[in-house]
């Protein structure tokens, strides 16, 4: 290539996390990203920032100070009460121009996936989607690793000659830091011209969806695949769930069979989960499934086929028949509980 001018990376400092929220309720992916940002920042000796855009969010910003950020930049205006793309992008632009962060991490939520690309395009810089691993080089280049082609390929992506560098990360991929009792860091209120907050979008209504138990938040999951022969066998699985405090989840074929609600599907076209324990029962371990659960702390797989690919991701693999093992396990637990 001909001589492309190189940018001065020293002019860009700080690792920033976008505070994802709806009506001031901060999405937990935000804290996970703050944890990651802190880890990266310590390698290159940069500060950790958060940018928080909304209305009446001062109190909520205080909460962020319990998670180890150096500075929260606050855009608090009545035009920002609901997420609308133009004013939110304008605030982000204002922040970047004034603070010049090197790296920006955004949760891959509905809002984040809409906002981050818009900001990246405005600054003609790179944005890497759905990163599963992040690291940083000495020269402040962000090392971004992400799956593509339905998880069949991992790509390591670099943004070598533009700043800021943007990346999105799905919920439950990184780990949230412990909340400190003490606060640290400070809150800085940012000013922005009113004209920049105009929008061609009008929010007519925001309705809460019915609160549902989300498998994304479960600490223990029992996941069933096609090795479970009929819907009525869920009774046995549910009994085990009750005994160990687990949520039930399924692979896509069981959703297609109409055996469970689509919200219980794990995988690429379902939810990502990161429980402390997942027990997979009669699941082969297709990449589209494992893409949604490989980050789990402990994976126990039960499958009668010793060649099943699920055993490549499992920490403990049980080569056996679930109809033999699970009833015995249920009995044992019941006995131990004295029931």
């Amino acid at each position: 290539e001909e001589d492309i001018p190189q940018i001065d990376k020293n002019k860009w400092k700080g690792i920033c996390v976008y505070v994802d929220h709806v009506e001031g309720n901060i999405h937990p992916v935000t804290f996970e990203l703050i944890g990651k940002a802190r880890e990266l920042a310590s390698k290159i000796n940069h500060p950790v920032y958060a940018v928080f855009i909304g209305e009446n969010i001062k109190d909520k910003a205080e909460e962020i100070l319990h998670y180890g950020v150096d500075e929260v930049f606050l855009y608090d205006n009545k035009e920002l009460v609901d997420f609308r793309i133009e004013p939110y992008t304008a605030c982000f632009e204002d922040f970047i121009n004034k603070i010049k962060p090197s790296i920006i991490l955004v949760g891959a939520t509905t809002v984040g996936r809409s906002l981050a690309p818009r900001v990246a395009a405005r600054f003609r810089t790179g944005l890497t989607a759905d990163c599963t691993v992040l690291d940083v080089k000495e020269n402040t280049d962000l090392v971004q690793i992400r799956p593509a082609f339905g998880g069949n390929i991992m790509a390591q992506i670099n943004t070598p000659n533009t700043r800021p560098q943007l990346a999105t990360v799905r919920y439950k991929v990184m780990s949230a830091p412990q909340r400190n009792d003490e606060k640290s860091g400070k809150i800085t209120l940012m000013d922005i011209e009113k004209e920049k907050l105009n929008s061609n979008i009008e929010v007519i209504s925001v309705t809460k969806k019915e609160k549902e138990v989300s498998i994304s938040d479960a600490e223990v999951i029992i996941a069933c695949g096609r090795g479970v022969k009929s819907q009525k066998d869920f009774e046995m699985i549910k009994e085990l769930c009750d005994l160990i405090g687990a949520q039930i989840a399924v692979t896509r074929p069981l959703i297609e069979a109409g055996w469970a609600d689509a919200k219980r599907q794990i995988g690429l076209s379902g939810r990502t989960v990161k429980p402390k324990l997942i027990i997979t029962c009669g699941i082969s371990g297709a990449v589209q499934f494992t893409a949604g659960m490989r980050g789990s702390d402990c994976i126990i797989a039960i499958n009668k086929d010793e060649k099943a690919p699920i055993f490549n991701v499992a920490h403990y693999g049980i080569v056996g028949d679930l109809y033999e093992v699970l009833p015995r396990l249920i009995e044992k637990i019941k006995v131990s509980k004295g029931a």
Partner: protein
Amino acid sequence: MDILVLIKQVPGTNKVEVDEKTGVLKRDGVDSKMNPYDLYALETALRIKQNKGGKISVLSMGPPQAESIIKEAYMMGADDGALLSDRKFAGADVLATSYTLSQGIKKIGKADLIICGKQTTDGDTAQVGPEIAEFLGIPHVANVRKIIEIKEKSIVVEMDMPETVEIVDIKFPCLITVEKDIFQPRLPSYKKKLETKDREIKVFSLKDFDDKNEKKYGLNGSPTQVERIFPPSVNNDKEIWQGNSDELTEKLYKKLKDLKFIQ
């Protein structure tokens, strides 16, 4: 009403090869198809046209063989189609792709509503729609799961958020990306195939654009670089248990107890 649908050609399977040196996909000789999510975008346009009239154009960026998905769109009912194709566009990341498409959109003329799929099955970023909207300077709404009303100067849609559903009214011109299942896509029709077999597909290259600066397109215009591609890791730190059912159950029970999942 003028509706523009953006469609991408993707590999027919998920098993694809990557050029080790550039990290760019080897697309030659790979069986390909229309990005399945774009079928929902096209169907949405067709339903709007059924109710409100108007014209549906489709636009794609890709190698010459991507004409086949434009033909497919004709068979489903699109009126008009164009392909942006030039060696100089090759190796584009999201930014360069979106910029190229936005230049193409300016070339083919005004659209009131631009509809994109939610994501593709290859690059899989879901970023192209919002970036195009930025380059065109128009509002966008992503993850639309329902069209509620088409008004004279705006469209009212339902957006799916993690814990809420938002109903928003967006003024034209605007861009939306639609969720799958917004409408069930129709199949290509044989009758339409015959009707449209000679229909023109316009092809534009860099020389047709307002901005002819080569540095903004293809690999040169891409701020992200794929440094390496590798298969997902396997976990080597594992135990495999075999034996009779009683032994297996005993081991499992003990493990759950050690890990404190059973008190």
